[in-house]
């Protein structure tokens, strides 16, 4: 039971990372830019929801407000990154998105303060199965994670939209000659990515507490997962998200008593796991060898 309980907690954390790694993958696939500002975007959307609820708005209105904020942040990301994506200045794109994230964190900190906020002032409601338990946000994260992962796997691999998304980053001029607008595709992807980041931001902070820099640790894990899984493989990214989270969580969680490993070691283990996988499979977990012409 103890093992299963630790596994359940770890799966929730892993799914939070998956839900941020997927938008990171989508943005990369359409623009070849690592959008590291997505973590802060998600937290900003969570603050928007918190602010709306604290202001006495009804839940549907607060969700609509948070959704509008996510869309606005997606459009803002597009305005910042589009030129760089067009010019294929991907490193600048990474720096700009990172700066965008830092700016968002600073703005949120100035507006709401840096002390933690709670959506609920009482302990979270839980769902129990025999001796096992999960919080409601944890269950919602797991369910949403599974549904969205499968959905995006299908969209990216099996639909024209997924092929179009990949094509814009490969050769946007060729796509334009076929009367497709690459900019519109990237805008759409960034809006979807911001909404997804907002969802994971809300779920993560609902499950713990809300601080301006809460998105940083999740985006770092998602970024590592994207690298370990392979930047061109959504399946690999999803698998790697669980690997980089589950291994450290289980090592920390299952060690106890005299041989207990502290939670403070978690990020160290994450980086060791990532280093091992990147050395073993530098192009990604599920990437096959391709013939080089």
């Amino acid at each position, binding site marked *: 039971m*103890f093992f299963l*309980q*630790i596994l359940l*907690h*770890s799966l929730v*954390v892993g799914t939070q990372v998956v839900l941020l790694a997927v938008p990171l993958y989508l943005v990369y696939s359409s623009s070849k830019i690592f959008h590291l500002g997505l973590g802060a975007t998600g937290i900003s959307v969570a603050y928007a929801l918190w602010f709306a609820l604290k202001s006495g708005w009804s839940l549907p209105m607060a969700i609509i407000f948070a959704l509008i904020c996510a869309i606005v942040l997606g459009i803002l990301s597009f305005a910042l990154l589009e030129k760089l994506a067009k010019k294929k200045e991907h490193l600048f794109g990474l720096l700009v998105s990172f700066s965008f994230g830092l700016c968002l964190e600073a703005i949120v*900190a100035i507006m709401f*303060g*840096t*002390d*933690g906020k*709670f959506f609920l*002032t*009482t*302990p*979270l409601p*839980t769902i129990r199965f025999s001796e096992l*338990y999960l*919080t409601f946000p944890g269950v919602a994260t797991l369910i949403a994670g599974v549904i969205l992962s499968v959905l995006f796997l299908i969209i990216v691999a099996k639909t024209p939209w997924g092929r179009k998304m990949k094509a814009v980053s490969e050769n946007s001029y060729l796509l334009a000659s076929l009367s497709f607008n690459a900019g519109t595709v990237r805008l759409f992807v960034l809006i979807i990515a911001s909404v997804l980041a907002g969802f994971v931001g809300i779920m993560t*902070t609902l*499950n*713990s*507490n809300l*601080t301006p820099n*809460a998105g940083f640790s999740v985006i770092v894990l998602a970024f590592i997962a994207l690298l370990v899984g392979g930047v061109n493989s959504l399946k690999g990214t999803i698998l790697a998200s669980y690997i980089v989270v589950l291994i450290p*969580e289980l090592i*920390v*969680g299952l*060690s*106890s*008593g005299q041989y*207990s490993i*502290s*939670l*403070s070691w*978690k990020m160290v283990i994450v980086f060791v796991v990532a280093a091992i996988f990147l050395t073993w499979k530098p192009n990604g977990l599920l990437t096959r060898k391709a013939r080089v012409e």
Partner: protein
Amino acid sequence: MVIRSIADLSSRSYLRFAVVEMTIWRALFTKTMNLAKMTMLYLLIIKFKSMKLFSQKSLALLVPVLAVVLLLSGCVSQPPAPKALETIKIGVIAPMSGDAAAVGEQIKKVFDYLLPSINETAKNEGKQYQFIYEDGKCAGSEAVAAYQKLTNIDGVKFIFGGMCSSETLAIAPLTKDGSTLVVSSLSSNPALEGASPYTFTFSYSDDVMGKTLAKEMSKYERVALITEQTDWNIGIQKVLLDELKANYPKVTVVANEVFPKGATDIRSTLEKVKKMAPAALFLNPAPGVTAETLVKQMAELKEWTGCTMFGQTSYIGESNLKVAPEITEGMIVVDAPKSTNSEFVTLSGEIETAKGTISDLGAYYSAAIIDSTRIMTKLISEFGNDPIAVQKALKERTFSGFISNDINFKNSSFPNIGGGIYKVIDGKAVYQQ
């Protein structure tokens, strides 16, 4: 008159117009004007004009705007004060942001409330005090930056703070040359003992807290600890473990978990601790959000029956106790003895009425801030803005205050204070002994 003559010097009609306008404002707002500053302003405008930085139209607009700014910013001289008071600046380093911001805010409330009464007393000595607040963020590096700003830019020679042990431990080495005297009210890490001859704290030492906790927890055979990774919390954990090992061999520490500072998800750690089935569990988070998160996540886990909870200062305030009463009710909290002095009770009530709640500080630390402020300002009024002379007096004398009637630093950086035991009853930490 002077302004008009300056205006006559200019052949430009727009400038003359603007200066006349300023004269009217001057007549409206004050009867005297700082001639030197006005002349400088005039010369600047001429210079800007020659540099073609402004068009004629914008220059005509600029003059009245600048005049308003000068009037509002105090360029206009005020009526002379009846007696010149020497202003002594005192820095305050406290966590104004971050997880412990709520505590920092309450510390500021106490200082803000005390300042007028202190200045009223100091007026007789020809002095007045000014507090300059800097954010230490409960972190050593931030506290050092705040210290450098206060000493190098503001020129302060006395600092109240840091308030977190991490802050005070970081700035203590910088005071060794005696250029600044640092007095904390809340820092309790035993490593502060002798850290610098010019660093003192009005808090009790964690040694006292650790020993009192060890004595209370020794009633149980299987004990566990959950500690946040901060200097203050690690200090308490170390003293408690050393004391249990040295004096209570029958007690077994079945779990000793440490989690990172500001961690938001502590559920796996709590599962590990619960699996070891301790009879007593010491919760050792930093004050603020983490303390609240810890008990909330424990409440989600449920089934802590048969395990007696122990806490420290983080659970003395009501805000952290009310979020998960199923965990905190009955908790034994070790802190300093409660001040029952009636004057203190009245004063803290007045502070709460005037400035809002200070409950997260607890009675001891509120009293410690009041005592340290009163004692230090009294000594500064007596010995002047001289940290070495004030430090000498602080070490040699014995003081009476709300925290004790025998506050002395003759052989220690800490005052001579014992530990107090509280029990949480109906959501409040009630003093037991």
